[in-house]
Structures are given as structure tokens and as C-alpha cells.
């Protein structure tokens, strides 16, 4: 299983694994489908920041990523 750290930026994450875009959107990161947001806000937004901001439990993020074959590690 590939490991993803909670401090990774959304931009880096989607650059490495573009297939996760739907997963993130489903979790509640709804801004990523707005054009221009990933390359700007996405370079600063991380999974942990997003969890705080959008009130998405880290557990839910971990579970979702697992279904895509990724392991979430908090750092």
C-alpha cells in the first residue's frame, strides 16, 4: 500500500495520484473542481488543514483513501 502523509499538499497529492480527485471531492473537498483552485489554494491546503476547515474526520479520510489503496499516516 502506498503511504500518504496528512501534511501533503492537495496539489502534490493530485499531481502524484490524479485518480484521487473524485475521492477528495466525495470527502467534501468541493473546491478542487473549481478551475484554478488546485494550482493555487491546493499548494497550501493539506489533508490535515482541510480536515479542520471542512470538518471532515481524519478517520473518514483514512477510510476513503484505503478503498483507493492508500494508507494515511498522520504527521
Amino acid at each position: 500500500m502506498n503511504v500518504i502523509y496528512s501534511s501533503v499538499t492537495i496539489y502534490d497529492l493530485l499531481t502524484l495520484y490524479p485518480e484521487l480527485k473524485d475521492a477528495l471531492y466525495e470527502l467534501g473537498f468541493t473546491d478542487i473542481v473549481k478551475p484554478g483552485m488546485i494550482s493555487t489554494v491546493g499548494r497550501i491546503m493539506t489533508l490535515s488543514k482541510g480536515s479542520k476547515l471542512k470538518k471532515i474526520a481524519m478517520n473518514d479520510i483514512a477510510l476513503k483513501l484505503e478503498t483507493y489503496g492508500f494508507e494515511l499516516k498522520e504527521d
Partner: protein
Amino acid sequence: MSEFINNREKRQEQLKGLIKKLHDGATVDQVKAEFDALTTGITAIEITEMEQALVNEGMPVEEIQRLCDVHASVFKGSIEDIHREEGINFDGFDEGHPVHTFKKENRKIESTLEEVLNYLSDYTENPIASKVEKLKFSLIKLSTIDLHYKRKENLLFPYMERYDITAPPQVMWGVDDEIRADLKTLIKHLTLEKPDVPEVNQLTRKLVDSVSEMIFKEEEIMFPMVLEKFTQEEWQEIEKASAEIGYTLLPVVKRWLPVTANTIPDLENKAQEVKRELKDEHMMKTVTENDEDVVINRIKKDAQTVIPFDAGSLTSLEVNAILNTIPFDMTFVDANDRVKYFTQGKERIFDRPITILGREVKHCHPPKSVHIVEKIVEDLKSGAKDNEDFWIRMGEQFVYIRYFAVRSKTGEFLGTLEITQNIKPITELEGEKRLMSN
């Protein structure tokens, strides 16, 4: 709950007494003990709130600042230490730096949100008129957040757009507007004869959440983003244009006196680098043309340049004065859809901060009205229309907004001219006036 507020009022009165003593000549040492006794057991935030309340009552800030000296000596620290205790994280910014000011405002906004929630639970327990008034009052206080957002939208966003960061401003502006609308709705609801208590609760909590979320977005995302990109010079331009718009919940905002880019070779080089990177030549010209006062366009060098017109010629000094004298506001957007010029008459109907010069017109409008603006410009450009008018009531004014296509003699589209005027006095004219007034 009520005795808590009573104690606060009592303490406030005592604070006032202390200030009067200082005013009448008592030394810091003489009042130190009293101040210490007064402030034992209350947080620094409360002290600030008390000071704020005194300011709101009209006490001059200089008097309050005397208190800061006592406060500092009691705490055995500097004013900065006090503020650090209050949770204002400086992060190495000088006071007066736009980000420092935005953050300071956010701390004040947060304590206002706390106040709102307190008054909300007071009101929910006992929904009488006086509780409604208290809640309404703190919400009205909160609505001055409009200025914080205005500075964000009119000062920070234009610079972000120059760096091609265009989506986040549009998204954020939309949310700012939602918050403004929610505040208005809530305050309006509280003026009803019988406000619905569960409704008030739901609306208030939603509002408090939205505002807190926005603070998070600003501090965790937007500020880091812009601090990475903007140059020292740009921050100075932003700071210069800030006082004109105004601040939220801050009685005093000191001017920023940083070491300027001109005196630090590294920063000056970076500023030059960015200027070179700016793709739009038009913008580069606007930035480099006036060395001393980049933001404020003064016609120093060209005061006597003569410009020929169809009938006669005028010096640029005359043109500027004439355009600022005519009784309406004009804004000119060039053929590339960028704001190029606007009149600076005594009182403008709609704000025009200098920082919008060079900005694409669609970015100057809240997301809701962008498509209307684009359609007008398109129709005027294509020749489908030469003019489009709107008229709206705004408080006491009856505002007539007209858009004209500006074309050269050969029919070439040069830009869009927007003319706004309060026509209420005109619509009220009756009869004739042939004689001079006294």
C-alpha cells in the same frame, strides 16, 4: 450570567476612574496597585474589551493608551508582550504591515463572535426585548467586518490576480458576500415584532461558523500564499491605500514604517524581478511610471503637457481638474477590459480604490454580477449596443448608471465608459430657475 455582566460594568467604571486619576496627574506607580487589584483574575482579552468599550463610549484613544502603560508595568512586560498574551501572533510582522493588521482584526472579530454567542444564549434563555437589543448590537458591531473584507477584495485580490491567482479571489469573494447577506438577514429578523427563537439560533450559529471558517481560510491559506508572492513594495502600496477604506474594530492603526525596498538591495532586486515577470505591459507601465508615489497618481511631471482635442487644447492639469469637477463619476475601462482611469470627484457614489487600476473589469465585481458586466462590455465592443443604462435606489440616492461604448472617429473600439450620477435632485426639479442664488 447577569451578575457577570454587572461585574464587568463595575470594573469598567473603576477603570474609568483610574484613567481620570492618571489624567489628573497621578503617576503609573501610584495607580499600579489599584490596577493590579482590578485586573486580577481576568484575561487580557477582557482588559482589551474593557478598553474597547471605553473607546466606543467616546473616550479619546490617548487616554486609553495611558492605561496601556499601567497595564504594561503591572504585567512587567512590554505592550507587545501584552498583545502576545492576548493571542495576537505577530509572526515577525511589523505593526502596520497589512497582514499584521488583518490578523489583529481577526482577533477582534473572534472576540466579537464570542460576544455574539454569549448574547445569543442570554437571549435564548430569556427572549425579552433588552436581550434582543444586546444581540442585535453585537451583530451590528460584527457587520463592520465589511471593511476587513473590502480591503481584502480591493487591495489584496488585485495583486493576487496580477500573479495569475484568479480563482481563489472569486471563490472567496462569493463567500464574503454570503456572510454579508446572512448578517443582514439575521439583523433584519431581529427587528421583527416577534423573532423566532430557534430560527435566530440557527442563523446565528451558521453565521458564527462561516465567519470563523473565513478567518481560518485567510490565516491558513490566503496569507501564506500572498506572503510568498508579494514584494515589499506591493505591501507598501497596499498599506498606503488601506486607511481610505477603513478598519474593522480597531480604534488605532499605526502607519507602517518599514525599511524600504530602496534601502535593501536584495528586496529592490526582487521587486525588479517581479516587474519583469508581469506579462501585461500596460500594468508594468502603471507600476514603473511614478517612482515616488506608485499608488497615488500625481500629475507632477506632466502638469504642463498640452493635449489637443477636437475643439481646443488643455493642459493635463486642466483636464484632471475639469474631469474631477463634472458632477458625475466616470470610470474608463480600456479595449483590453482593464480599468484604466476614473474621476476623483469630491464624493464618489461607488468606491474606487487606486489599486484597481490595471485590473480586469470582471475581477472588480462580486461573482454574482460578473456575467452582467461581461455581457455589457461584449455588446458595446461588438457594436450590438452603444449604450446601456440602469437606475437603482440606494438609500437617499437615486443612482443612474450609464455605459457607453467609446469609439474613435474611424469606429475603432477604444473602451467602455461608465458614468454614475445621483439624479434624485434632478428628478425633483420643478419650474425654472433663471436668477442666481444668493
